[in-house]
């Protein structure tokens, strides 16, 4: 399988002189096409910094990130925008839909920004919305939909452009467990049927247990990697919990 994401010895240092914070301290990570990888870790372990660096919102201090053959450090502002809209899809914790647009328009906007031919936009929007189970909400405004529907709409917006890599930052963070399960189910379907590569940051063990592989971060470094392999979701969940407990009491909130 080809490599979609290759992160090598990534460092990100905030501050100067004596008061430096090493948010990332030499992280190396690689994702193959079609993988669904979770990143876990306590607060301050560097999860969000890693995601921000990969999503080009933040620039690393050293190290390299290669996405789909593009070395991020070599892109300028305009190329970065192009890179973001063509290769990346985002799902945020607070779904971040535009409140003035209907669900359908929110999804279509991603295609408009990509300059997709106008004729095929409604069809593609419909297709992805059906896949995520929000086909009947396309004409609703975000505030008319439930939190789960909003988050699936955000997922549809991220996926509709067929990005090389989907970055999800705590997508279930603001959802109740039923909506969270529905969203994760759909992400798995997208991963399996469309072959989408997903990198998801979470600190919820249940959410992480639907990934094929989980990377644990601590103090800006990779602490451990866990492969799901052939095991079922329940035993993978148990494994994750074990690692979390091993990492320290910081994540007591997972239970």
């Amino acid at each position, binding site marked *: 399988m080809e490599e979609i994401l290759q992160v090598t010895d990534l460092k990100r240092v905030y501050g100067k002189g004596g008061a430096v914070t090493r948010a990332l301290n030499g992280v190396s990570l690689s994702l193959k096409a079609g993988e669904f990888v979770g990143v876990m870790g306590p607060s301050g372990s560097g999860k969000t910094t890693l995601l921000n660096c990969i999503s080009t919102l933040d620039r690393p201090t050293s190290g390299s990130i290669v996405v789909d053959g593009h070395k991020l450090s070599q892109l300028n502002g305009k190329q970065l*925008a192009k890179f973001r809209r063509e290769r990346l899809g985002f799902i945020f914790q607070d779904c971040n839909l*535009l409140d003035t647009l209907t669900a359908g328009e929110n999804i279509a906007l991603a295609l408009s920004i990509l300059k997709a031919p106008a004729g095929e936009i409604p069809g593609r929007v419909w297709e992805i919305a059906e896949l995520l189970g929000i086909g009947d909400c396309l004409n609703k405004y975000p505030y008319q939909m439930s939190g789960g529907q909003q988050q699936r709409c955000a997922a549809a917006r991220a996926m509709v452009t067929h990005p090389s890599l989907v970055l999800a930052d705590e997508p279930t963070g603001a959802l109740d467990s039923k909506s969270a399960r529905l969203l994760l189910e759909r992400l798995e379907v997208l991963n399996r049927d469309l072959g989408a590569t997903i990198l998801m940051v979470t600190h919820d063990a249940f959410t992480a247990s639907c990934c094929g592989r989980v990377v644990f971060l601590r103090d800006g470094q990779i602490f451990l990697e866990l492969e799901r392999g052939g095991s079922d979701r329940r035993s993978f969940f148990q494994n994750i919990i074990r690692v979390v407990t091993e990492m320290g009491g910081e994540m007591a909130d997972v239970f």
Partner: protein
Amino acid sequence: MFSKLAIRNVRRSFRDYGIYFLTLTFGVCLFYTFNAIEGQGAMAYLAQREHPAVSAIMMLVDIFSVFVAVVLACLILYANRFLLRRRKRELGTYLLLGLSQMQVSKLLFLETGVIGLVSLGAGLALGVLASLGLSALTLSMFQIDMAGMLGLTFSVKAAGKTLLSFGLIFLLVMVFSGIRVSRSRLIDLIYSQRKNEVLKVRSLTWSAVQLVAGVLCLAAAYATLLTFGMAIAVAVLPICIPMLALGTAGTLLIFRSLSGFVMKFVQGRPNLYYRELNLFTLRQWLSKVHTTYLAQTVVCILLLLAIGITASSVGLNNTIASNSGYQAPFDITAQNLSGDEELVDFERVLNEAGFDTKEKLAWSCTAVFYYNDPQVTGLENASAALRVSDYDALRLRQGKPAYSGPLPCKADNLNEELTTGSLGLSYVLIPDEMAQQLSPSRQVWSADYLADKEETEAEIMDTIRSLDVPFASWITTRLNIYQDLMGSKILALFLGLYLGFTFLLAAAAVLALQQLSQAADNAGRYALLRKLGAEEKLVARSATQQVALAFLLPLALALLHSVVGMKAANDLIATAGKVDSVASSAVTALVLVVVYGGYFLATALACRRMAKSTQ
């Protein structure tokens, strides 16, 4: 410490204060300029000659200034309210940190003071320059040479008036912001940003219905105005009130529904709808309609007033101007109304009194009007008769050809300029020899000065006043007419421009503030667009398009209203004289472009910067 914090706050939030500052400065400049007209160009010329129009103009300017000050005060309070709303969180933080409400009020007090002082200074400086411009404009309107009247002047009286009015306005603003702070609750200040805006969903079909209703209302109002004409439509209340109501309702409905209608229209055209950020821009517009349509209607009406008043005052001014040559073909005209009792030899009378007509006058001519006897001339309906040789002499002096046509002839339709000042006679032209059969009724003596016009006129008037002659009270001079004209011209132009500018300023500032407050709300949306990969250029363009929609739509509708209004007004003014509508439209357009365009640019730039600065 407070003054330091206040100055730092003002400097840091200059972006927010920019439009506020601009509005204050323009307001001060406008106020000073028009209160300083006494010492300016043509007004100074009139004031030196103690012309009665001067005191009338100054009185009207004073009355209008009160009105303008009230409008500006409302505008400044509105702007201040907008600023305070944007700073709710900051003020909440001060309170949270333990400052008392008194101290926060004091801080705002100082900030308003700093802004007020700076804008007063800048406005007065700008006002001195604007006075110079206005002087040049008024001087250029008159044919009299007034070189040397132009120069930079500073009117202490006007500056004092400006300081007083704006000092009061700032005090009012300070009191209001103090009250607002002491009344607000900390929890509201801190959580002000978390309150979501409730979006109302509107049916697009309903929009279309409203738009059609709006267009029909406007059409009915326009039809009323054009059918009845300006004079009747404005003066007769049973026609005037429904017409204005229809016009306002139509404007309101159009602003309320236009975005929905356009949305429906564009949605049917995927190539346009899905292009770049079009759907985002359109939705932004649509979502703001229920908060902006009232303001847009008000702005549209203010713009209409500004355009209408400016254009009519300039147009009226040109009408008066075109009447001036008609009334004053010669430097002086004296009439002897009792020609049937005795005929006067004007030159001899003057020479005997010590006024040398040969040396001081370039040209003079005495024309005699006779009683018209229909049995002799064969023409009725005219009270006087004039010999064709006199007639030709008066015409030749003006560079016009001699009369060639049948004689005798009724001269009503010739509409000639034979005297300075009005003649008040209808006459027939007769062959010279026919005059022997008629008896004289009136002698009309006209002359042009040779040397310096003002000196000669003073001298000849002194001479005549010292004599006891019947024609002494029937003298009209070109200078007198010009001064009278100048008075009415300045009155129309100054007051028109004053009000027009005030309305324009108010309209532009209201729009600018509204757009800026929306741009602040939009910052998060732009950040999201950027995360989705939208290019900087597209985001900035969308921000500009939204500002442009807000500024250009009221302008477009106001222009349409004023075209119809000016058409009706022209028909009215045309009965008095022809309005030079091209020139007046050009001046109006220039004024509009400068002020409104300036606000549009400032707002668009600020909004673009706000869209950009949220990374």
